[in-house]
């Protein structure tokens, strides 16, 4: 190998490192869970997902315009934080006036069923988004992700990452109460 190309080869790791450094710099100070707010205040995208049980109900945009405030939780059996936030969703189902529904994101139906069997099923309705297409329409960044949808089917709020008690008490419930009035 000529010395010149040897040098280029040896300089390659440096180039990669500098490139990555630049990207890291660009991401610093930006909350990775901050969402593009494009969907806020907009109606939910049209979708129609099958349920976990082939004969049972699925989940569609019409279900979200049915008049009650709905918490839409995007989850998957393979996601660890989903298990962490799961008890909180179960607790949410006990709040009067709020309906919790789930979108199982890129998850096999059998796995989702096993997950819900294991942890308990807090969802009034579950839609199985097997290939993640509906997730793209919703702008899903990763699981878990949680949306608050008004009775008219507009997205009012979104949270990326596992829910915590602080977020539910501090942000989600006050907003939900306002929406219910």
């Amino acid at each position, binding site marked *: 190998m000529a*010395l010149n190309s*040897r*040098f280029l*080869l*040896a*300089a390659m*790791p*440096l180039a990669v*490192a*500098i490139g*990555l*450094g630049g*990207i*890291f*710099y*660009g*991401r*610093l*100070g*930006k*909350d*990775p*869970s901050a*969402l*593009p707010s494009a969907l806020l205040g907009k109606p939910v995208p049209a979708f129609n997902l099958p349920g976990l049980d082939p004969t049972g109900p699925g989940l569609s945009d019409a279900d979200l315009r049915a008049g009650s405030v709905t918490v839409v939780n995007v989850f*998957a059996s*393979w*996601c*660890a*934080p989903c*298990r*962490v936030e799961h*008890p909180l969703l179960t607790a949410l189902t006990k709040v009067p006036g709020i309906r919790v529904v789930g979108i199982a994101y*890129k998850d096999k139906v059998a796995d989702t069923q096993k997950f819900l*069997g*294991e*942890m*308990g099923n807090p969802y009034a309705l579950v839609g199985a988004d097997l290939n993640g297409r509906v997730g*793209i329409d919703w*702008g*899903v*960044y*990763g*699981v878990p992700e949680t949306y608050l949808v008004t009775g008219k089917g507009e997205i009012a709020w979104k949270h*990326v*990452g*596992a829910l915590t*008690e602080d977020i539910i008490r501090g942000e989600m419930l006050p907003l939900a109460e306002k929406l219910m009035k």
Partner: protein
Amino acid sequence: MIAELGHFALILAFVLAVVQGTVPLVGAARGHLPAIRLADTAAVLQFLLVAGAFAALMHAYVTSDFSLVNVAANSHSQKPMLYKITGVWGNHEGSLLLWALMLTLFGAMVALFGQNLPDTFRARVLSVQGLVGVGFIAFMIFTSNPFERLDPAPLEGNGLNPILQDPGLAFHPPFLYAGYVGISIAFSFAVAALIEGRVPPSWARWVRPWTLAAWSMLTIGITGGSYWAYYELGWGGFWFWDPVENASLMPWLAATALLHSAIVVEKRDTLKSWTILLAILAFSLSLLGTFLVRSGVLTSVHAFASDPTRGFFILIFLLAVTGGALTLYAIRAPALKAGGVFQTISREGALVLNNLLLATATATVLIGTLYPLVLDWLGGAKVSVGPPYFNGTFMPLLGPLMVALAIGPLLPWKRGDLAAVAGKLKLVAGIALVAALAIFALTDGAPWLALVAFAFAFFLAGSVIVELLERVQLRKLGPAGAFRRLIHLPRGAVGMTLAHLGLAISVFGVAAASGFAVEHLGIMKPGETLKIAGYSLTFKGVEEVPGPNYTAKRGTFEVAGVGTMRPETRRFQSPPMETTEAAIHPTLAGDLYVVVGEPTGPGYAVRVYWKPFVMWIWAGGLLMAAGGFASLSDRRLRVGAPVRRSPALAQAAE
């Protein structure tokens, strides 16, 4: 007062690190002996000062001195003593101090036990180590001072995250950090060699014990972390492909590759440039992990609370370390001359293949970890990468890696004969295949992926044994003679055998525990009996039990032939949080894993798992680490031991 002394010690250590990072470097360039000698003294002093700072913080925790911000935010007077002590590194500032402590400890050890290294080389190594120390200590002093005071001091602290209130915190971070930081020694050796512009075979012999020690500790740290997650998080998983886990796996993979390529440098005087690059990358990946965890650019389950200033500082530091070293590499590496030539089918060839596979595996994990970040930067969709990606890309690399591992040690250096090796391993391969098929026949619905993994694990284990029998010359010497040879095998060879066997055992455990787990999830009423995997569990009920700083709901299960199992759900008051404490009955053949949850209807939500051979995962990990330590005790590598090669050793060397 003691806290101020600690702070002062830290500042002195910083100043000393600046001296250590510059003076010996200039001294080595000019041949000025006192400046060269200064490195040893500075390294030891720096360690003592950081140890003093660490002791001061420890004192504040043990005495619950809530006038320190750090203690008030992370400790509580009612916390058991063990967690007051381990709480020191259960937070961002304290864990950095632990990093610095390990870093300076390794530096001091090079100064004290590295007397076999040429003086100028050791001075350069310690200088580079000092510069790394400058970065870390400055990071602490300027952005994350653990000794910051709080006025007025609160009467009570906030308490430690309950998940961290576990003996796991006592061993997991220290081993992990010792591993991360230990790799910095390999980095310093690599940079020092680049400064000198030459990599003699003796370089590999010098760097190997340090890399081995760091690698072994990193192995223990990762194994321990995986076991901790298994018993603490309450659903029996052992690896989640979380960015922080990946952050520890990447340096481990790179260090594993480094260990193997260093052998080639030592024995055959080639692969130098690649080995140097690996040493730089392994430490850069350790730093990258620190950056990802503490800067908040990625979302992870166990990231530290972070702010952009800190992220910016580590980024600059990361770029200075990695960029500086890689710039030096770009300038010097092209001039490194390769020595020995070898054919593709040879020990070197197998080690190169091993390196390629490990490097690919590292890249795979790196891409999966950074992909969301890069895509986000490109303005694309926000995505997260989860286990489906890693299972699909990382796992297939393990198969060829295990085959290379099985075949490599049986090949001679320079030029090998694949047909001869195939002849030796024919029987083992047959047995492995038959065994996997037998498992398929005996169990119904075995997942094929687990069966493939079984076949590879059996094949690797069998090959390791074949290699061992060949090495002790069983056929020629008979059992008694072979046993004598076995006892006198060089430790390096013993280490290799243990480590490779450890991998086979781990893979076997992972395949068995993921492919053949049995679980029962449901509501049990007191008095009910459940039969699972040959065990019969009778649920006796749940009672409230007070703990030192929590109240527990403790379930009682009578298990026939085992005794009583008592899983708990613990409710902590500060901070208010619940943790599950699974009751585990571990056996060689598998674990019975019981978790009790919320009262539901007439009974309690109960989860019972049977995880076959799950212990083998961590046993394999520990065996790998034991292999590392065995190899470390090899006379040839022992730090400071004079090089003495008897004919027997030379003949049997790996």
